[in-house]
């Protein structure tokens, strides 16, 4: 249903104002005092699903801050943005986290980066900014330069949550041992059982949004968007292009739509095969790790042939795609995908009865349907818990409206269910690739694009291998985004970890966290909690190096003694 028609069905009180940003997006201007009631209405009456919050500093043009709460109305294939203007003299906004737990991080991020504080937020600690970042400096405000380095506040310390009584603390990280990515999880344990946890991530805030808002042109930002994720980069570049196209009302050629679907499914197949390998590596099943990656390799070569790179395809452009499939493309694509399908089925057939695999995956890391909805998780994590959402069907983009595919849903909610969802999705993706090659019409692959008009809003979703990626974009006056907010799928999936690990064994934590297929970023600091005194000590890199050298020389000495 188009946004224009849908508006007539909405029954809100007179203080809110409804408008259409584009055919897929409804803007609702809500005064701050009505925000909670309106969000409840969207949640309960319109069956909205919270996606993200995007704060913007509009003091130079409108004299106020702006906070946008983005919801997906999945049943009606629409987005709804609750826009609240905030007076700079009193930058507070009522928190919606008490009844939408999935908004927890998004609201804290708005506070960290723009400086609009959610009142009555259940966890008001810092999220994105480092511990030594000075108070009262907000990097996404317009008057903060992109290359500014404020003096560090050396007193800043991370405030860890108090562990429950009678529990010990088991720190994992800041380098996650199996994923080789930076994240710091303090597990609170009683014996082998996990009774709670505290999470600290965002060790390397890369300032991607700031670069695109302050320096890069629309065209340059596409490549920056592609580098948000090393595995599903095309998702973000296409999502960014779609957001710009939505905002500017650009129609793109049909062949380009099909090509986008093609490249996105290409990426999904390789990403899921990568994950299957990694998941097996997490549980020590390295045979399957090797086999999954062996199956994946011809696909990487195919991608290199089709796009010019194994990863970061670099195909997205505003108005279409940059590269068509080569003339002899289909002749090379078919044998590779046929082979992958056959080999994957052989492997799946082999592992289904594997006792050790079943023991590690069945019944571990259970995320109930209720929690999955509450924390607004997306992608295979949601579908493994019986939440039937998929942006390809719910918010059709590219050519998905014309393609026939199944949304794979499992009810178990455990690691096994998430694994099965991904395996089934690889097979579905191969089906989609075949359909695209048959149905793709001839024609141009890129539309001519004029200047992008300022102050338009574009909201766009793309179903990444990890779940729905969402971009909110407000166009600016000088051919670059005024505000661009990226919600990567892991952002919400990671918030489901506490619910998922509650009551689990420690040994199942790595695979359970890994089963989200998460993406973290980089750090070089480490906190250790002394279990007797409960004191937190932070080691610097030099100290760690010394400790490492000392332990190695100790090892060598004891080996020499044995010899």
């Amino acid at each position, binding site marked *: 249903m188009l946004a224009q028609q849908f508006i007539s069905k909405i029954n809100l009180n007179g203080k809110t104002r409804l408008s259409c940003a584009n055919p897929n997006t409804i803007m609702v201007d809500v005064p701050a005092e009505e925000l909670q009631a309106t969000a409840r209405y969207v949640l309960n009456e319109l069956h909205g699903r919270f996606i993200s919050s995007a704060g913007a500093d509009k003091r130079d043009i409108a004299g106020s801050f702006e906070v946008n709460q983005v919801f997906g109305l999945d049943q009606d294939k629409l987005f709804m943005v609750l826009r609240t203007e905030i007076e700079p003299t009193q930058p507070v906004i009522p928190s919606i986290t008490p009844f939408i737990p999935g908004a927890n991080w998004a609201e804290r991020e708005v506070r960290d980066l723009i400086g609009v504080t959610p009142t009555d937020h259940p966890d008001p600690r810092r999220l994105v900014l480092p511990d030594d970042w000075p108070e009262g400096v907000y990097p996404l405000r317009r008057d903060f330069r992109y290359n500014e380095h404020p003096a560090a506040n050396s007193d800043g310390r991370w405030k860890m949550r108090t562990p429950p009584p009678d529990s010990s603390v088991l720190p994992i990280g800041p380098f996650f041992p199996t994923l080789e990515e930076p994240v710091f999880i303090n597990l609170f344990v009683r014996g082998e059982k996990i009774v709670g946890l505290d999470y600290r991530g965002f060790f390397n805030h890369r300032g991607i949004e700031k670069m695109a808002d302050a320096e890069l042109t629309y065209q340059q930002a596409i*490549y920056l968007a592609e580098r948000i994720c090393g595995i599903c980069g095309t998702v973000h570049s296409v999502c960014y292009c779609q957001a710009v196209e939505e905002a500017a009302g650009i129609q793109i050629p049909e062949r380009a739509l099909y090509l986008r679907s093609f490249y996105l499914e290409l990426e999904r197949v390789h990403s899921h095969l990568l994950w299957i390998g990694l998941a097996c590596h997490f549980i020590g099943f390295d045979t399957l790790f090797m*086999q999954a990656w062996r199956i994946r390799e011809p696909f990487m070569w195919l991608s290199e042939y089709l796009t010019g790179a194994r990863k*970061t395809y*670099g195909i997205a452009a505003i108005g279409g795609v940059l590269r068509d499939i080569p003339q002899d493309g289909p002749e090379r694509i078919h044998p590779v995908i046929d082979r992958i399908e056959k080999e994957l089925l052989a492997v799946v057939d082999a592992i289904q009865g594997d*006792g050790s695999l079943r023991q590690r995956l069945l019944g571990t890391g259970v995320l109930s349907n209720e929690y999955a909805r509450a924390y607004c998780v997306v992608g295979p994590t949601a579908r493994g818990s019986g939440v039937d959402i998929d942006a390809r069907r719910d918010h059709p983009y590219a050519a998905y409206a014309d393609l026939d595919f199944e949304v794979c849903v499992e009810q178990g909610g455990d690691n096994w269910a998430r694994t099965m969802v991904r395996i089934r999705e690889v097979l579905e993706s191969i089906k989609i690739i075949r359909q695209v090659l048959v149905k793709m019409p001839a024609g141009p692959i890129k539309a001519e694009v004029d200047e992008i008009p300022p102050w338009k809003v574009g909201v766009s979703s793309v179903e990444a291998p990890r779940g729905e990626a969402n971009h909110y974009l407000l166009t600016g006056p000088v051919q670059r985004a005024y505000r661009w907010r990226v919600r990567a799928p892991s952002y919400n999936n990671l918030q489901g970890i506490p619910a998922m690990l509650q009551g689990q064994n420690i040994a199942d934590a790595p695979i359970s966290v890994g089963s989200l297929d998460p993406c973290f970023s980089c750090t070089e600091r480490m906190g250790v909690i002394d279990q007797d005194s409960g004191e937190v000590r932070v080691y610097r890199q030099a100290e760690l190096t010394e400790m490492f050298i000392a332990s190695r020389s100790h090892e060598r000495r004891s080996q020499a003694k044995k010899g």
Partner: protein
Amino acid sequence: MFKHTISELKEALVCLQAGQVTLAYPLQPHPAEENFRGKPVVDFERCIGCGACAKVCPPRLIQLTDADGYREVSYTLGRCTYCGSCRDVCPAQAVQMSPLFETATPQIEDINISIRLKLLTCRECGETIATQRMAKRVENALHEAGYSHTENVNLCLSCKRKLGLNSPAWIQEVTR
């Protein structure tokens, strides 16, 4: 238990069928695919120094510096992301993405590119207009389009105005 054994046998079969797939790289070289986007190479003969590549480069590693009658186009390729934007936009087809991917080097200069092109100065005021190759390209284009008067190519915009050689309004609009 029985099911488990069958499963393990099947897994062994998968591994045996696959055999050894790793290559003895680098002893056994493995060339990239033909469309591969490797290290950008610039044809010095073709480059006209227009700077279109510098405008689109996302990591902004291409710099133009005008000094002493020469324009230097420099590529600091240590920051290259191999996106191919410079190739896509080059009007002279001077940039190509080569299949080179083994670019590790202890000498950073090895992977940098620098081109020096002579600048054209205004015959009246001496102001820099463009590179000589760009002017030549404009001249050629004008000749091909049937214009014979190309003697004013070496005049800067403000001198053209002073001499009453104002371009029609629509040209000013496009060249603004």
